[in-house]
């Protein structure tokens, strides 16, 4: 139980660091840490498969992709464009308002304050695999097409212009 609150605090802290750090590279690194804390949350929920996927895909693949792009574009603290303070304050206020209204909304719908009982079965790779390949077979296959399409699109977009084929 205390683990949850500790990890939640860390997650919020590193998330804030992510958006407030001026150096983009640091931002990415903080985000990686944030994702790591979220992976711990998945483990706490006994969602082992998700924890592994999050660790490998998000932290491993996607964040590395971000880092590569940053390095490719050679961005650093000096070239970082920053908004004026007024806009920053406006953004922060808007975000706070969002939190306030979200929480207010949750309070209004009054969820029963039950404990989350981690299910030992659900999150395991074996169970999830069965569900994925029985009930969700078609979406699963379609998502593979989506990934293929995204790959083709990314290659096409990032390729250098071959001047007038």
């Amino acid at each position, binding site marked *: 139980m205390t*683990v949850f609150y500790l990890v*939640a605090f860390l997650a*919020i802290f590193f*998330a*804030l660091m*992510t*958006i407030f750090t001026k150096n983009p590279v640091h931002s990415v690194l903080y*985000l990686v840490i*944030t994702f790591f804390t*979220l992976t711990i*949350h*998945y*483990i*706490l929920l*006994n*969602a082992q*498969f*998700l924890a592994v996927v*999050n660790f490998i*895909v*998000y932290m491993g693949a996607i964040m590395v*992709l*971000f880092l590569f*792009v940053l390095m490719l574009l050679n*961005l650093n603290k000096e070239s970082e*464009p920053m*908004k004026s303070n007024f*806009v920053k304050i*406006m*953004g922060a206020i*808007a*975000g706070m308002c*969002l*939190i306030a209204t*979200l*929480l207010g909304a*949750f309070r209004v719908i009054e*969820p029963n304050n*039950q*404990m*989350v*009982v*981690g*299910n030992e*079965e*659900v*999150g395991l790779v074996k*169970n*999830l695999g069965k*569900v994925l390949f029985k*009930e*969700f077979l078609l979406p699963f296959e379609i*998502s593979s097409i*989506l*990934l293929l399409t*995204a790959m083709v*699109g*990314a290659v096409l*977009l*990032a390729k250098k212009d071959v001047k007038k084929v």
Partner: protein
Amino acid sequence: MENIVQNIQGVPLNHYIIFCSIIFAIGVIGVLIRRNVIIIMMSIELMLNAVNLLLAAFSAYRGDASGQVFVFFVMALAAAEVAVGLAIIIMVYRNTKSVDIETLSKLRW
């Protein structure tokens, strides 16, 4: 393992909701206050992860695997989105030599 499982028994669902809302709002704030397109995309990832975690929490709470399957699909989608998004950013950078979102103000009357 048993120990960890026991540990989470005591966390009320409300706290997951509050925690994920906060992470989500931080993502929104990040989108609002940064001008670097890459950071904005990272903030979007943050928001996606907040939602993912909430889905997983509800899934565990209800003992239903569908929620976790959904998270899996969201991750696949996020991977695709990031790939295409970063490719676009590279293209933009090549043309404008900048990743500042304010330079992309062509979407105007």
